[in-house]
């Protein structure tokens, strides 16, 4: 194996690109779970965002339109979940699974005519002198706006949850929806909004996969990224800053194994490809084993159905 074939600057650069869809999807799911809703449909919303964003970008020639449409479709799909779980009071686990299964089918249906096409390129931001710094310029300061936007979104989500009135209300709904209802907080409306935000983030993340990271459309191309995003939320103990760390960690593992494959590692390709999933499982185990009874960070109403009783 030739490790010198791996350029550190390119490795960091592709790590940031690889981590961005995970970060977006996980931030969205974090907000959803903070509102007390468990949406297991992240994978489905991502893949629908991937194809819808791809299709829109190809049709209009504008990557920006692609990202916007991907986010919109992710949010739209999540509304099915919202209506079912919040209005029809269906089981959240089953409905999330249904969303993923439906999203996978829908995406390959929509994607029939888009296989093998190149999307319009997403421009990289010119950060002037920053982009010219040796190593760092190439690794960190020569990305498109979505990469920086996702990092900014991390800070925004943190501020929203911990510093804003609306964020406090959202956390209250996730902690104890009955008490929130008794105080006159509109539980269902807040959860609808949170679910839509989660859907939009997952859709945006999916669009990033098909428009920038790969960039083309293939069936099932998100390949479990949605599930890893769900795991990142657990890994992060429901904290935005740790979601960032988690996304970059898992993005790093993915990028590293791809680079090792390219460098001709002694390990068979299949074992390298399974490594991100194995690492995710190991991290989940470590996190859940460490968590004592006292410090359960999960929102107390997570996954429980809410029906306003009179």
């Amino acid at each position, binding site marked *: 194996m030739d490790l010198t074939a791996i350029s550190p600057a390119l490795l960091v650069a592709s790590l940031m690109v690889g981590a961005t869809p995970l970060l977006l999807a996980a931030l969205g799911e974090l907000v959803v779970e903070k509102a007390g809703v468990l949406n297991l449909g992240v994978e489905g919303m991502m893949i629908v965002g991937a194809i819808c964003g791809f299709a829109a970008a190809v049709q209009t020639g504008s990557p920006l339109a692609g990202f916007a449409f991907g986010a919109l479709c992710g949010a739209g799909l999540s509304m099915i979940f919202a209506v079912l779980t919040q209005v029809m009071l269906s089981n959240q686990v089953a409905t999330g699974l249904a969303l993923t299964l439906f999203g996978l089918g829908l995406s*390959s249906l929509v994607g029939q005519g888009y296989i093998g096409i190149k999307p319009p390129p997403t421009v990289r931001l010119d950060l002037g002198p920053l982009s010219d710094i040796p190593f760092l310029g190439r690794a960190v300061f020569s990305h498109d706006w979505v990469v920086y936007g996702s990092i900014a979104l991390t800070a925004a989500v943190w501020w929203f949850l911990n510093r804003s009135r609306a964020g406090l209300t959202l956390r209250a709904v996730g902690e104890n929806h009955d008490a929130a209802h008794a105080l006159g907080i509109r539980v269902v409306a807040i959860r609808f909004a949170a679910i839509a935000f989660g859907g939009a983030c997952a859709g945006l993340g999916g669009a990033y996969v098909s428009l920038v990271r790969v960039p083309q459309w293939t069936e099932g191309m998100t390949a479990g990224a949605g599930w890893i995003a769900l795991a990142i939320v657990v890994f992060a103990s429901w904290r935005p800053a740790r979601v960032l760390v988690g996304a970059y960690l898992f993005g790093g593992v993915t990028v590293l194994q791809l680079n090792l494959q390219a460098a001709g590692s002694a390990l068979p390709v299949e074992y390298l*490809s399974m490594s991100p999933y194995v690492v995710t*499982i190991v991290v989940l*185990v470590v996190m859940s084993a460490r968590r004592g009874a006292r410090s359960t960070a999960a929102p107390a109403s997570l996954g429980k159905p809410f*029906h306003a009783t009179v």
Partner: protein
Amino acid sequence: MIRLEKRPQPSRAWSWATPLLAVALTLLAGGLMFAALGKDPVAALRTIFLDPLFDPQFAAYSRPQLLVKAGPLILIAVGLSLGFRAGVWNIGAEGQYIVGALCGAGAGLALYPLEAWWIFPMMVLAGAAGGFLWAMIPAILRIRFNTNEILVSLLLVYVAENLLASMAVGRLRNPEGGGFPGSRNLAQWSSSANPELIPGTGMHWGVAAAFIAVILAYVLLQRHLMGFHIRLAGQAPRAARFAGVRPAVLVAFCLGVSGALAGLAGIFEVTGPSGQISIDFNVGYGFTAIIVAFLGRLHPVGILFAGLLLALTYIGGELASFMLNIPAAAIQAFQGMLLFFLLAVDVLTNYRIRRGRTVTP
């Protein structure tokens, strides 16, 4: 304003009617989807649901396929339904199906070309053991470390798929296959073959196993304390602990049984209909079985019917793709829609819909 009012107890009538209503709504929405794809909706639905059974040209081929496809779906769904009832969410049946097939096939191929009557039963046991052990990974992690079994079992599907890819081009590759990936044909080796038991019906050992699983699950849930405890744990976890149910036993039982049944489905498939281990021998039965389990209302008899219906969508989907050029993916979306509608109308079992304003939202 329309609002929901909880029924004093679940409606029996609706618990039977909701799956039928969901199917009806799915047919309606599916018709719209086909119309949106520019196909004649009536023709599409007829091709999917009626032609495989009644069209003189296709029925001879399609009818046996019904059991061939329904067998693994029912077998896996029966296992999953136990866990879903108990609140143990195994959604990695696809992985257990793959690993079961790999273990069973590996155990058999190790003896190739020996001919003996006991090879097939041994492979079946090895397949069940493979699925069981793969499912015990999330079970043990949940019991020991309280790790979420939903995520672990699902992530293990991706691991299993990579394992399958590695085996198909590596250890289990047919040495006489001219370098093509894929194992020897197990259906053509008489010691490992899982043949059609009654010619022209599609009935093979896996289908027989599915019927037996339905009966055993029915008895377990209706008559046995273990089944009672499974239902209890799902409905009221604290009451289950009060009754003396040990959560660890339940998690191990539900994941173990569903894993073993998925493994069985896998080994019956590679020794019969599919014939060999190949990179893509798995066609998503493990995921479709989740829909089957819910459509059957997690009831063994319901699952029997739901498995046959979903099998029909597979066969009809192939036919529609061949006859009307409807993409195969449309069927997958169709199946997802079915689950949505089912979950949506399920509310009628436990709630009454009333008009008028009482509660501020």
